[in-house]
C-alpha cells in the first residue's frame, strides 16, 4: 500500500488548527510548497513531522528532509521509508 498526497493533504487539514495554519483559502495539493504556499515555519514543520512519524510508524531523518520542499516530496520520503508502503510512490490525489 502506498501513501498518497491526498492522505497527507487530509492529515494537514486535520492538523491545521493545531499547527496554526490558515488553509481555508489555499488549495493544497502535492505541488504545494510547505514553506511558501502553506506558510509553515520550522516549528510547524517539526510538529507535522512528529505527527507523520507517529501515524506511519517511521523515523524521518534530517538527511531525508534535505530535499523536501513540497507535499509530494514528503509523500516520496514516507513511501521510501514506510514499512507499510510497497512499490512506487502513488500520488492519486496530486
Amino acid at each position, binding site marked *: 500500500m502506498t501513501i498518497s498526497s491526498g492522505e497527507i493533504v487530509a492529515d494537514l487539514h486535520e492538523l491545521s488548527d*493545531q499547527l*496554526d495554519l*490558515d488553509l481555508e*483559502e*489555499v488549495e493544497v495539493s502535492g505541488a504545494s510548497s510547505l514553506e511558501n504556499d502553506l*506558510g509553515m515555519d*520550522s*516549528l510547524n514543520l*517539526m510538529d507535522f513531522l*512528529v505527527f507523520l512519524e507517529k501515524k506511519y510508524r517511521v523515523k524521518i531523518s534530517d538527511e531525508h528532509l534535505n530535499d523536501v520542499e513540497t507535499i509530494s516530496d514528503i509523500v516520496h520520503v514516507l513511501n521510501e521509508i514506510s514499512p507499510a508502503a510497497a512499490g512506487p510512490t502513488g500520488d492519486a490525489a496530486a
Partner: protein
Amino acid sequence: MRGPRGAGPGAEVAGFVDDFRAFVAGTLADAPAPGPETVYDDEHPLWEKFRAAGLANWWLPARHGGPGVPLRVSVDLIAELSYHDPGFAFAAMLPILGSRMLEFYGTAEVADRYLGEMAKGGTFCAALGSEVVAGSELALTATTFRREGDHLVVDGEKAFSTNLAFGRFCLALARNAEDHRDFSVVLVPADTPGFEPGPRWLMSGLHGTGTYPATFTNCVVPAANELSGNGLRVLEVGLNGSRILMAAIAIGIARRARDLSMEYAGNKQLGGRPLTQNAVFAARMGQLEMELESLKSVCWRAADEYDALYAREDAAAAFHGQGVLKSAVMAKMHCGQTGWRIVSAVSEGFGGLGYTEAHPVQRLLRDMRHISLVEGGDDVLRELTYGRYVRHASRRG
C-alpha cells in the same frame, strides 16, 4: 481546560486591586531602592509583606486557590509596581510564565499540587529555556530527558532563570535524548537531587531580581511531571502572559521618567523662568505623553486578546494551536523600543546629572533595557514576526 471568568473585573477583583494599590502606596512607595545585591526572594521583608497581604501570584485561578485576576487588570497593576520598583515588578510577575504552562498542560494532579502550594504560600516558580549555545534557537536545546519506566531523567545546563534559587519548582525545556524532534517541558521540584542552581548573575539593571544558571545531572522526576504537548509550543504559550506583563513594566518606568522630569524642570531655571515654561521642554513632554499612551494601548490590546482566549472552554488547546500571540510580541517589541526612546530622551533632559548615580533617572535607563532583550531579543522577534505574519499575505495585519 477552562478559564474561570469573563473579561471584566468583578467585585472580588476590584477588592483585590484596592489591596494591591494600598500595598503600592503604603509600602512599596516608601521602600528603599534595591541595590545590586538585593534579591526579592520569599524571605525578603518586602516580599513577606506582599505575600502577607495575599497579593503574590495574583493571576492564579480560583480553582487553584488564587485570586484569578485577568491580564488586562494585571497590566495596570504591573505598571504601578514598576513605577516604584521595576525589579520587584519583574520578580513578582515572572512566575506567570511557568505557572501558566503548568496550568494548561500539566496533569490535573500535578497542577493542583504545585499551583495550590504557590497560591497558598505566595512562593515562586521558575522557567528555564535559555542555554548558552542554543541561544534563541530553541530547537538546538541540548538539555535532554529520558523516559525510564514511570520516571524521567533530565540532564543539561541552562543559562538564565529568574527566581530559580528560591523557587519551589522549575519548568525546564528539554529534548528527548532518543528523538531530536521531541521536546517537552518538565517540572523539576527544587529539592530534586542533581538539580543545582549556579551563582546569581549580577545584572546592570532590574536590581532586586535574582537570575541564575542551573545544571541538571541525572535528575529523576516522576513521568507525570512531563507537560503535554510540544515543549517548544508550550514554552511559546507560557511566554505570552509574561511578555505582555514585561511590556507593561515599560509603562511604569515611563511614567516615573515623566514625573521625575517634571519635578526637575520645576526647580531648574532657564532664562529666569522654570524649565517647565520652556517650549522645547514642553514639546519633549508632549511627545513623551503620546508615546506613553501608545505603550498602554498595545499592552491593553494584547491583554484583552489573551483574556478572551483564556476564558474559552478549550483555552489550553486554543493557545497550543496558536503558540505565540502576535499582539503579545508586538507589545513587548513596541514597549521595549518606545520605552527606551522615552528614557533616553528624558535622561538627556537632566544634563550631566542624568548620567550620574546621584539621580534615579539613570537607573530607569538600565531597567528599561531588559524589555528589548529578555524573552526574545528584537532581532529574533522581528524574524519571527516576518516569518509568521508578513511573508504570507493571508496573515498580514
